[in-house]
């Protein structure tokens, strides 16, 4: 009888029947009212509420963990890779002017309206475009754009990176400027609608009515301009391959640059790890006429006099930097070089001695 009443009460709770507030016709009705409204006998309801709260907390925790993980996995990584792809492409499109043999050696010389370089001798599409654009700029025209594709295969995933387009433009915004702007963007602009731009600086040397143009092979600054200028002075002044010729070249070179040799840039100083105490400006570029008649730039201390034997820490020749290196690494960092008779072939030749010219860049 007791169990029977209890079972009925539980059944009413489970089935959520409407609360029966019938007046006291019997003990069952009274107990139902007490159990649904009072504290006693509500353990199942409390358990269900506790279960509900735990479930909600669990769902929220799992959802937060999985959402954070997925968001980082997809959106962020794709954006980062898209940027790295563009940044790599724009740098590579610029660096081919340093590492492509044809482009790094391309010097366009104008003698009036005559151009020294022959377009048919150039193999690369970019090199032919550079020559044609330089001629157009020289004649006062507007050069055409060049659109090329840049494609790479990722060795880590064995899949190709999303192809991008590089647009080369030789801008004549400033008269006499042959600088090249390369803009890289995705072929499908709907996916990532932004672009990266880099400038390939040109070195323009005017000597005796001739104009020689080349494009900087290393970074934003290197010694190409100085070497071209020294070579132009040597040619212009018809300097002989003698000690007197070298000294005349050095005087003309200093006069051209305001009475002193031009200093090394910070980047060039880092090639030889010149200490900060000495500083980059403590060293200057001094030209010498080498044994074979070519001009070589030597990095010497600032107080180097014309017509002297100099302590040379670095040399620039053939668009490359060479530093005087000791195999032991501590005893000597410079070589004493006379103003005449320097053998430039030792720069590119392999050395079997303890001290040698080491290719830096």
């Amino acid at each position, binding site marked *: 009888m*007791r*169990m029977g009443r209890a079972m009925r009460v539980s059944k009413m709770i489970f089935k959520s029947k409407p609360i029966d507030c019938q007046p006291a016709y019997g003990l069952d009705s009274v107990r139902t009212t007490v159990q649904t409204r009072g504290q006693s006998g509500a353990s*199942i309801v409390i358990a269900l509420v506790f*279960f509900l709260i735990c479930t909600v*907390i669990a769902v929220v925790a799992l959802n937060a963990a999985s959402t954070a993980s997925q968001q980082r996995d997809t959106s962020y990584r794709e954006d*980062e890779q898209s940027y790295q792809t563009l940044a790599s492409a724009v740098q590579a499109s610029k660096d081919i002017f340093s*590492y492509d043999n044809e482009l790094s050696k391309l010097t366009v010389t104008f003698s009036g309206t005559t151009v020294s370089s022959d377009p048919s001798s150039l193999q690369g599409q970019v090199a032919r475009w550079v020559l044609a654009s330089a001629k157009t700029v020289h004649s006062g025209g507007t050069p055409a754009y060049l659109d*090329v594709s840049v494609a790479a295969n*990722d060795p*880590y995933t064995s899949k190709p990176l999303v192809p991008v387009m590089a647009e080369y433009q030789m801008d004549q915004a400033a008269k006499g400027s042959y600088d090249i702007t390369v803009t890289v963007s995705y072929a499908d602009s709907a996916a990532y609608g932004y672009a990266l731009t880099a400038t390939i600086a040109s070195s323009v040397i005017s000597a005796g009515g001739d104009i020689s143009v080349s494009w900087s092979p290393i970074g934003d600054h290197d010694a190409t301009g100085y070497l071209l200028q020294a070579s132009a002075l040597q040619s212009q002044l018809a300097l002989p391959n003698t000690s007197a010729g070298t000294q005349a070249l050095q005087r003309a070179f200093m006069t051209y640059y305001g009475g002193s040799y031009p200093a090394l840039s910070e980047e060039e100083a880092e090639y030889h790890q010149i200490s900060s105490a000495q500083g980059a400006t403590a060293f200057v570029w001094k030209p010498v006429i080498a044994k074979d008649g070519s001009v070589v730039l030597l990095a010497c201390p600032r107080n180097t006099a014309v017509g002297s034997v100099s302590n040379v820490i670095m040399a620039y020749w053939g668009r490359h930097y060479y530093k005087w290196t000791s195999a032991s690494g501590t005893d000597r960092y410079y070589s004493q070089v006379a103003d005449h008779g320097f053998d430039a072939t030792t720069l590119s030749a392999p050395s079997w001695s303890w001290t040698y010219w080491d290719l830096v860049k």
Partner: protein
Amino acid sequence: MKGQAPVRTTAGETIVETLVAIVICAFAVVVLTTSTVVAARLNAAAQARDASFDKQRLAAETGSAASASDGTVTIAGKDYSVLFSGGDAVSSYELDSGA
């Protein structure tokens, strides 16, 4: 008898109700504990992936030679040797100066 308070109250719950409530509570605790453990594992895995990704991104941005891998880029139909840095999540490349 009517109107007289009982000596021992009959209000309360049956053993079945109590057991059911205990089972529900236990199930709720199991669900919460399991979800907490799973969430912690997800976070740990995500942190591990983030650490790996950050390492690859740093290598890609600095062009680290430690994890460099040879590759090729084609510009205007001409192939150039490049060095890839980074990993399978993110990578970059630069022209190989030794090529």
